[in-house]
């Protein structure tokens, strides 16, 4: 694990960057490893490092703005990587940089990104190569391995610092903490893109189901986090854990800010919506029951009807 950064810079990462990186990686991986075996020709994209699809690495540049001690990473674009020389194609980078400068005049190249589980040796070479554009670039690393138990984002930001190792000052990567920052418009579009529905468009039912599943998992996560906090506070009260005053103050301020809305009209509206939802579930439940009943009656009739039936409607048959 790289040690923590001591540069004092605050990093803010926009979700667009994360989406771009993951999209780049997925595209390249799918092109290299097409899902159907009917594809005869393969397009070998230019920024692959290793041949096997598991170790595909993609490279690109991150751009943004630095104001004072705050570094805000807004956007990113892809770069061409030459596997023979293990270096980035400079002319391509400069061309792209010019183009982006025209569209976003305030943004500069802040660093570069790649995918993988941890930083490797030749990353430092690329890092040094970028140092002539930006004297202290950042390295954003995305871990594409899907780990369901991991709760945080698999994105790490590294800075380079000169540390003395074996008597020689060498640059090494150090971990920097970051926060996610977003604007409302960006949040809506990222949300929309991130929750892509199945390709056949999906009926209203599947969309509703997907939406409700999303809400359900969000509430579950909230519930589990509150439970962790609660158990922590209970343990502190019992004396198992030494009291941490700053944490308790944070928890108290959080609790005092709830409930967020507390007026008569709010309660009214809230109860009305709650009752509406309950009525809808009741209706759905009744429909479900009716369809079950229909199945039972159909089966019963098939099983017990005699071949000749008198009367307009089938009469019920006695118990044996």
């Amino acid at each position, binding site marked *: 694990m790289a040690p923590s950064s001591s540069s004092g810079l605050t990093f803010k990462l926009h979700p667009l960057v994360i989406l771009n990186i993951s999209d780049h990686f997925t595209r390249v991986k799918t092109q290299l490893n097409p899902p159907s075996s009917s594809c005869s020709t393969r397009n070998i994209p230019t920024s692959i490092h290793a041949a096997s699809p598991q170790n595909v690495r993609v490279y690109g540049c991150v751009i943004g703005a630095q104001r004072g001690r705050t570094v805000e990473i807004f956007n990113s674009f892809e770069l061409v990587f030459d596997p023979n020389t293990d270096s980035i194609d400079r002319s391509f980078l400069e061309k792209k940089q010019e183009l982006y400068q025209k569209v976003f005049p305030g943004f500069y190249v802040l660093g570069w990104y790649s995918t993988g589980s941890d930083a490797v040796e030749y990353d430092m070479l690329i890092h040094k190569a970028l140092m002539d554009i930006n004297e202290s670039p950042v390295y954003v690393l995305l871990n594409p391995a899907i780990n369901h138990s991991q709760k945080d984002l698999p994105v790490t930001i590294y800075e380079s610092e000169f540390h003395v190792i074996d008597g020689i000052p060498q640059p090494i990567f150090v971990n920097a903490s970051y926060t996610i920052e977003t604007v409302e418009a960006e949040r809506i579009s990222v949300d929309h893109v991130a929750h892509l529905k199945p390709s056949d468009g999906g009926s209203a039912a599947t969309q509703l189901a997907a939406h409700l599943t999303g809400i359900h998992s969000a509430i579950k996560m909230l519930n589990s986090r509150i439970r962790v906090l609660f158990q922590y506070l209970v343990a502190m009260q019992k004396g198992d854990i030494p009291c941490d005053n700053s944490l308790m103050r944070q928890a108290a301020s959080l609790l005092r800010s709830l409930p967020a809305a507390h007026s008569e009209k709010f309660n*009214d509206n809230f*109860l*009305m919506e*709650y*009752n509406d939802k*309950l*009525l809808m*579930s*009741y209706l759905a*439940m*009744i429909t*479900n*029951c009716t369809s*079950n*009943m229909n*199945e*039972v009656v159909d*089966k*019963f009739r*098939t*099983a*017990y009807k005699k071949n000749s039936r*008198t*009367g307009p*409607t089938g*009469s*019920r*048959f*006695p*118990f044996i």
Partner: protein
Amino acid sequence: MSTLEAVITSIQRLSATSRDLSALHDVLKGANDSLRTNSDLQLTTLDQLDPSKHSLGYLYLLDVLSCGPVSDVVPLIARFINGCDAAQIRLASEKFVSICKRLKDKVLELRDPLRGVAPLLAAVRKVQVSNKRLTALHPDCLQLCLLAKCYKAGFSILSDDILEVDLPRDFYLYCYYGGMICIGLKRFQKALELLYNVVTAPMHVVNAIALEAYKKYILVTLIHSGQFSVSLPKCASTAAKSNFKTLCTTYVEVGNCYNNGMISELEAVVVANSSEFEKDKNLGLVKQAVSSLYKRNILRLTQKYLTLSLQDIANMVQLANAKEAEMHVLQMIQDGQIHALINQKDGMVRFLEDPEQYKTSEMIEIMDSVIQRTIGLSKNLIAMDESLSCDPLYLGKVGRERQRYDFGDDFDTVPQKFSM
């Protein structure tokens, strides 16, 4: 003599585990006949056994004893029912049921049905294998509750949903008595459901229980919903449809008269046939139906008028004067059947809409309980569906239909008969 003591010692020995119990059961079955003729068997021999631990043996001996002339059998059986162990009883449920029936007969003989209500309630719970099964004791218990007029006790049995029935006769009696108990408690909705079950139950020939139930069913429909239709519901059996109407003509007449809405005619019909109603013991119900006609007419007025004076109401509904009209309207507002405002100064009544907005927290609780009930019902239906899918009759019929879509050798023919 020795057999009796042998039986008692084996009871005392073998009442612990389930394997022993089945062995004991066989022993008792074998010794049953000899016990009947054994003159040594007295009440005192029962003292050697403990009802809660040796329930099975106690049951057999008690059965033999109560057949013969024994005094004071009622508290004996009652104590046994309260103390016995449910698991052991279920092994010999017919004997238990016959003992309880004997208790009921004795209690009726003594003209004190109240004494039998509590033991029979406990007995029903003990002999029931699951909450959804109807036993032979249900109708007896309900009958005692009816005779003792303790309707609330009977109602507690009625709140279970019944899914499995052993004998149809039990079911008819259960629904009929249950309907009468609900009428006594003035819960006409539930009474209607129960009586509807009897009227539409499958039957080949007309059933006396169903006939009586049909008469009450007509009257309760009049009281509860104010409508009467001559035709039975579609799912009633053909026997019922063809015969009921001819056998209860006076009730059908009452129903038709009610539909016309004229109080005086209805009262005339009632008076004319009062002896028949008296015979069926339905006179009280008929009187309730007559008084409900006023309510129905007033209800109809709410759909036509927004405001009405009390005198007009009295005229339209054929009541004597405005005071009576006011009393009726007040009663209906209290029962929640209509929503209205009475202005006493000028005697005007203003009819309002239902003020329920469905947005209170009490509504949430009601909805929640209703949804839970529906979920439970859905689970029951799914279980029924599954058990039907495994029924060999059903599979045989479905298999026969499948053959029509046979494409050569693609599908195997479904076997016609399954040998288990």
